[in-house]
């Protein structure tokens, strides 16, 4: 997993994750999210795998997150109920 911190076109904080998020790197993922204050856009389009541990990190920060995903992750995000707690784009 690689994480890149930047800003999006609207100036919001943007963390772009690539690779796979699982039990082995959710700690790093969670720290990266915690380092950013305020609304945060998480770009998961480069992520091919997120497990429940990764989902826990997203749930913990759900209130301030806008998530950019791909259809590959759709079933997981929908099933977990994250779609009702966070703004998620890119599933359709």
């Amino acid at each position, binding site marked *: 997993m690689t994480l890149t911190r930047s800003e999006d076109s609207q100036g919001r904080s943007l963390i772009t994750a690539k690779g*796979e998020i*699982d*039990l*082995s790197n959710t700690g790093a993922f969670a720290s990266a999210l915690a380092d950013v204050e305020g609304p945060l856009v998480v770009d998961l389009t480069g992520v091919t*795998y997120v*497990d*429940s*541990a990764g*989902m*826990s990190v997203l749930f913990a920060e759900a209130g301030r997150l806008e998530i950019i995903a791909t259809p*590959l992750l759709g*079933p*997981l995000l929908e*099933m*977990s109920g994250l779609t009702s707690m966070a703004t998620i784009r890119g599933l359709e």
Partner: protein
Amino acid sequence: MTSSDGIGHRQDEPGLADVFAGSGEIGRDLAAVDWAATPLGPPAGWPQSLQTAVSILLSSRFSMWMAWGPELTFFCNNAYRLNTLGRKYPWALGRPAAEVWAEIWGDIGPRVDSVLTTGRATWDEALLLFLERSGYPEESYHTFSYSPLRDESGAVAGMLCVVSEETERVIGERRMATLRDLGSNPSVARDEREVLASACDQLDRNRYDLPFTLTYLFDDGHARLAGSTGVKPEHPAAPAVLRDGEPVWPVGAARRGESTVVELGAAADLPTGPWPRPPAQALVAPLQRPGGTPHGFLVAGLNRHRPLDDGYRGFVELVAGHLAAGVAGARDFRAQQRRAEELAELDRAKTAFFSNISHEFRTPLTLIMGPVQELRDRLPPQDPQAAGELEVIHRNGLRLGKLVNTLLDFSRLEAGRMQASFQPVDLPAVTAELASVFRSAVEKAGLAFEIDCAALPAPVYVDLALWEKVVLNLLSNALKFTVDGAVGVSVRAGAGGAVVTVSDTGVGVPEHEMPRLFERFHRIEHSWSRSREGSGIGLALVQELVGLHGGTIRAESTEGVGTRFTIELPFGADHLPADAISREPVPPADTGIAAPYVQEALRWLPDPGQTPDELPRSTSAGAAPEVLATVLVADDNADMRGYLTRLLLRAGYEVRTVNDGVAALEAVRAQPPDLVVSDVMMPRMDGLSLVSALRADPRTMAVPVLLLSARAGQEASGEGLRAGADDYLVKPFAAADLLARVRANVDLARLRGRHARWRDALIDSLQEAFFVCDDQGTVVEINTAFTEILGYGPEGLPYPVPHPWWPDARTDPEECKQFTDAFEARSGRDRHGLTVPVTHRDGRRLWINAMMNPARDPDSGRTMTVGTFRDVTAEHHARRREIALAEMNMRLSRATSAADALTAALEQMERLWRAEHVLAVVFHRHSAPQVSGATSRLAWEELPEDRRAALTALSRNGALIPVLLDDGATAVTVEHPDGPMVLWLRLDSRHPFTAQDELLLALLAGHLTQGLARARQIDQQRETALALQRAILGPSHLPGGFAVRYEPAARLEVGGDWYDTFPLRDGRIGIVVGDCVGRGLPAAAVMGQLRSACRALLLQEIGPARALTALDQFAAGVPGALCTTVFCGVLDPATGRLVHSSAGHPPAILALADGTTQLLEGGRSIPLAVKLGLPRTEAQCVLPPRSTLLTYTDGLVERRTSSLTEGIEKAAHAVQEGCANGLEDLAGQIMEDLAPEGGYDDDVALLLYRHPAPLEVVFPAEAGELHGARTRLRAWLDQCGFSTSLAQRVLLAVGEASANAIEHAYRGVVRQGVRLRLETAGDRELLVTVADTGTWKTPNADPAERRGRGTAIMEKMMDAVAILPDPTGTTVTMQVMIPHDDAVDADQIRGLAGQVPHHGEG
């Protein structure tokens, strides 16, 4: 080895060392054979099968021999030694059979070969063999069967021959046939030449016993060839005329009545008959004539292949006897014919005379004399005139009667019919007494009567009645011609005889008349005589009568001085015919002869005196028969019965009397007399009916009958004779006439009886039972062999239907039907005979060959049946044995285990003996006895206690010896591989267990012993073979994705098919499936080599085509490897790429996920080593995801009833059908679906691969390992061709399960591994297993929410999830259905399976 060692040895291996023990001398002689020098080796090393065969052989009472091993080493038992082997014993034991029977090997060799090669028994009946057992090639006949003996492997290792020698029977029957034919020549040959020609015809038919014969008859001082067989008349050994002393044949010895054996030189160039060499000897047998020199002699060339024993000599002498009888008969016939002609001539000359005298004169005389007598009695005494006239009539009547009687005497003498009976008498006393009768007449004539009879030193034999006539005639003559002087009678002893003189002082006879003095009817004209009466026959009669006595008479006379007659009679009886002599001295009795003479003489005298009252009366001593004979008298008149009885008793017959014809018939049937004398007119049944009834019954047909009737005349007698009477007599009859006829008929019947006796003797000498039955089927005649064979004797005759020897319809309905069917068919001509069962009088079951033919009885015209029974019980049992043994062998050979073999054998035995119950109990060495039954299942404990004890005792008996138990059961002990086994049979009590059954049981038990040993061997071989097969067949560890099956053919547990998989570089896998030609161990050995070679070649990475090309070279050097088919492939399991090449192997089948199948037909070429140097091609394909590859050997698909294509289609269908199953299940399913009924009959090897192989990943339970595991999982899911979404679902579920294991399982303990396994179940389903070995602990550090979320994810992603916590670890199993449309691109998949030609370099 000490004796105790020997015993110990035996106990260890029962039946091994003592195979010859207990067999007497032959056992010792067999033990003495140097077996080590034979291919069989020492007996201790013999296989069980050989020992069993030898035990059966030695314990049998039937004649047997056997041969075993590569040289067919010879064994035989005692019966065979005695019956057949002769001088070859004990030399023959242990020698090659071809050497023992070298002289007949040409005959029996092919039969032995046939048995050895086909395993089928042969049967030969009465086969002619020339045996060299007695020092010469001996003609012998044997009925035998050869049956195969098998060794432990079931192969034919030898043969057993059960023999019965039938030489005696065959030769006996042949000789008997010749004698029978000689005796039964239907044409009554009358001429000597015809007789001999006919006899020679018969002799010529038996050149076996009589290669040639010569019949010589003696003629005036030389012998003349009168008949010959087998040799040409001009042959030097057959000169037409032979004189005494000529060297060719011993004429002199034959003339003396001696039989001679003549050694024939080799140079004689004699005919050989049917034999290859001419006779070495001839027997010269005289044609005996009773009481005279032989008629001639018979020269019989002798069969050099038979010994000249009593039987042979007797046969030749019987033939000679028959020829002699024939010659004598012909000569007698000729003599009789001549005599008959002469008698006929004589009769013609005298018939008129004698009939006039005897019949026309006597009858009126009787009618005159009777009334005259009555008149004399009634005449009143006051009429002397009438009395005188009556006296004249009476006297003349007497005179006439005397004349007639004299003439009758004379005619009898002439015809030789005078029946004299000479008795030893005191001649002086008898003569003096006779003379005294004349005393009164002589003295009344005024003459002196000088009687001077001195005692004699020896008796003189005279017939008293005839002697009376001699003396009375002479005295009468003397008185007649003597005027005065004296008449004298004297008896003196002379030289060797008595001298009787009667002299007178009468007128004398003129000298010129003397020569004609004794001439018949010649009357001398005397100057004086007391009477003119006289027939001129008296002296002629006297001379004849004296001659009859063997004496002489002469006369001396001087005219005017007197005449003297001198009779000389020899003493003793030597000069008299023996049959006319009665040794009993009989005192002189009264006769009626004297009266007329005296009456007549007194009449000549001037004053006739008183008629003498006491005249001697005749003893009509009829000639008694030589042998005591019985006459049955049938007459309703008691006086007549009494008269006939007295008459016949006095004549020396035994007499029985009955009142009528019915009683007569019963009496004759009860005990046939020698003659029946019957009145014609009788109540109940008259004489004519009696005759008819007697003639209609074969038993009484031959009894002669003499009918008596009051009716005279030709017509009456004709009626009697037509009815079948032998003679006919009209009442009143003369006693002498009756006696003469009785005698004649008795003698005639005896003569006729000779033929009947000859016939009876012939029939009785037949070895076959002979019988005659009438048109009702009633048996009316049997011979002695019949009684011997069936036990029923002639005393029980007649035997009406059903005959007592028929099988009982109630107990043996089947056998009864067999017999009655054969009997019903008896009216047809029957040339072959039928073998049917009969019951001996003692209840034994016999099998007979019945031959029945119709024959018309010439007397009654009824259709009779003439039949013979030959006892073929032994043959029947031999055949039954063969069939039973063949069946047992078949059953045993089909058995696949010892238990199976035993059940099959018990079933057969139960059926064979119709046994109520059959048991086999095996006495295990270390466990409880085990009971088996044919139909029932019983445990040892369920048997009655006494039977258990009996069976246990039997288990210690010697093997193969049947034992009859007290309760009627039969048992035999058999060597079972697990210990002694007792076979126990309870039989149907109506069918006793015979010696034949015992033999059969022993033989069956012997075969069973071998069969059990063989079956046990098969059991062991199978286990060994399976172990071997497993060892060499394939890898013990298969790569993932493979399933294999190996199924040997039904009976052969090891074979030439194989499969192989092995790893190559870069994770590739070598796949080989092959099929060697043949079955069993040899094929397996070839297979092992090819398998190793093929693997080695593929490991060199040269590719399938070149590997097979190289394997061609290798296979060419391995015997049996030619034509092996091989499928050879290299699979890359990562990509599914398969490069393959096939050497004549059936195409592999590829079942695709879309439900279609393909055959991998590329890269195919001819089988191995067929053509060397042929470049092989290979093809490649990529196995689409979730496709299944089936490689196999042709045993899976090849069926006799359908084509290979059909088989392959069926296999493809089976793979496709089973795609939804796990691979192991699929393999089992295919094997099951394609198995033919009764199991595979060829080896089958099967190898399945499903692409991709299941995924197995084990990684340490560390979060950092998850990524690596996921990468491998992704690759595998890609191989499976799943859609991205499905793959993602699987990834998520597996990831959650793995994360759980890492997070929870190993908290607080040393971390171990997590194991993943993913497997497609065909193309329908994916199975996932995630397992750890830790303890599932309740999570406390992490929020339960998240773990619950993980589980929720698994359940959402998968169709089914199960978490099974366990003390040893936790296993999570998950399943997900693969949607039908999930495939990435079906067309693309199919395209991948294309074939790429590739040329190998080899």
